């Protein structure tokens, strides 16, 4: 199969609302048959906290702390938990439902898509495994979280691969049940989560990670990569969605 490769991050990092909007615009393109299946790679600037579709942004995120440190906050189209996007590479893929990588069985599709990410990590020298429902781990520690939604006859899955880990910073932006718990939560994350820097003992630049992930997905998914940037129509749609949906109070504070 042909797999459209869109390396958004090669040109720089984007704000969270626009990142989420580009994913949704691509969902529309694939859904209308205007684009082949897509693998997109990207990064975030400013850093951003996203919350899952079913979470309350207000309940999970310390919005004052975010404002004070210039961090965005956005609700995702996908379920799952709160994520602090900084020091990571993010991917998204859009596949028509029924595609070999997008069977009706949701857990199986997580496994199939994550196999590409695991392949990419292998190329970087990291031996990772899929951990159901939606994690990728190395030696029992999570290095990647993934989230999927199915809309408009397509599967959209996005996920993060941690290049670096900063739990203290993360918990300074999330609401925790009690301030005295913060230290314990930071320790828990350090025990359960890892990063490419920790695993490889060096900083992995975005471009190196992007190349490995693209190759890993191409190989695991049996796909031929075809670099194809955003069309002007997709870009316009993404800008509209970023403004009207992912930057709006109506969407972000809906639950």
């Amino acid at each position: 199969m042909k797999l459209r490769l869109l390396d958004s991050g090669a040109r720089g990092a984007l704000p969270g609302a626009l990142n989420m909007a580009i994913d949704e615009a691509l969902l529309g393109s694939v859904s209308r048959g205007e684009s082949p299946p897509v693998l997109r790679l990207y990064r975030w600037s400013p850093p951003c906290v996203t919350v899952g579709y079913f979470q309350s942004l207000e309940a999970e995120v310390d919005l004052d702390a975010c404002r004070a440190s210039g961090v965005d906050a956005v609700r995702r189209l996908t379920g799952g938990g709160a994520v602090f996007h900084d020091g990571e590479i993010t991917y998204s893929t859009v596949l028509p439902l029924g595609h070999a990588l997008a069977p009706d069985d949701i857990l199986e599709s997580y496994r199939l898509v994550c196999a590409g990410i695991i392949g990419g990590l292998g190329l970087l020298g990291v031996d990772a495994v899929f951990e159901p429902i939606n994690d990728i781990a190395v030696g029992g520690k999570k290095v990647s979280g993934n989230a999927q939604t199915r809309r408009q006859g397509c599967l959209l899955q996005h996920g993060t691969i941690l290049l670096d880990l900063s739990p203290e910073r993360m918990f300074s932006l999330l609401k925790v049940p009690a301030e005295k718990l913060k230290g314990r939560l930071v320790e828990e994350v350090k025990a359960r989560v890892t990063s490419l820097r920790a695993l490889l003992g060096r900083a992995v630049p975005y471009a190196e990670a992007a190349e490995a992930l693209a190759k890993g997905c191409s190989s695991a998914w049996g796909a031929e990569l075809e670099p194809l940037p955003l069309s002007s129509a997709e870009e316009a749609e993404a800008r509209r969605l970023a403004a009207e949906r992912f930057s709006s109070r109506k969407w972000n504070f809906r639950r």
Partner: protein
Amino acid sequence: MIRRRDHKVPGGKLLRVEVEIESGLVRRALVRGDFFAHPEEAFEAAEAGFVGIPVELVEETALSLFSKPPLRLFGATPADIAQALGEAADETQAP
């Protein structure tokens, strides 16, 4: 009266439920959390199904509404959600 309850699900997910009650009837039920539900709109339709039901039927209604196809849940079961909502609703009857 709005009652909230946080309910940790075995496996680690956190359900944060809210039940608004007036004269023994549910006005609104909201199930927030870090779980997955497909399709998302079917989950919201299930939440809307609580409007007007008597408080004492919250748990069994939840079991039925959140088990209904095409809804598929990951990270929390209909029984988890029913328990969380049932406990929240129960508190409203406490003195």
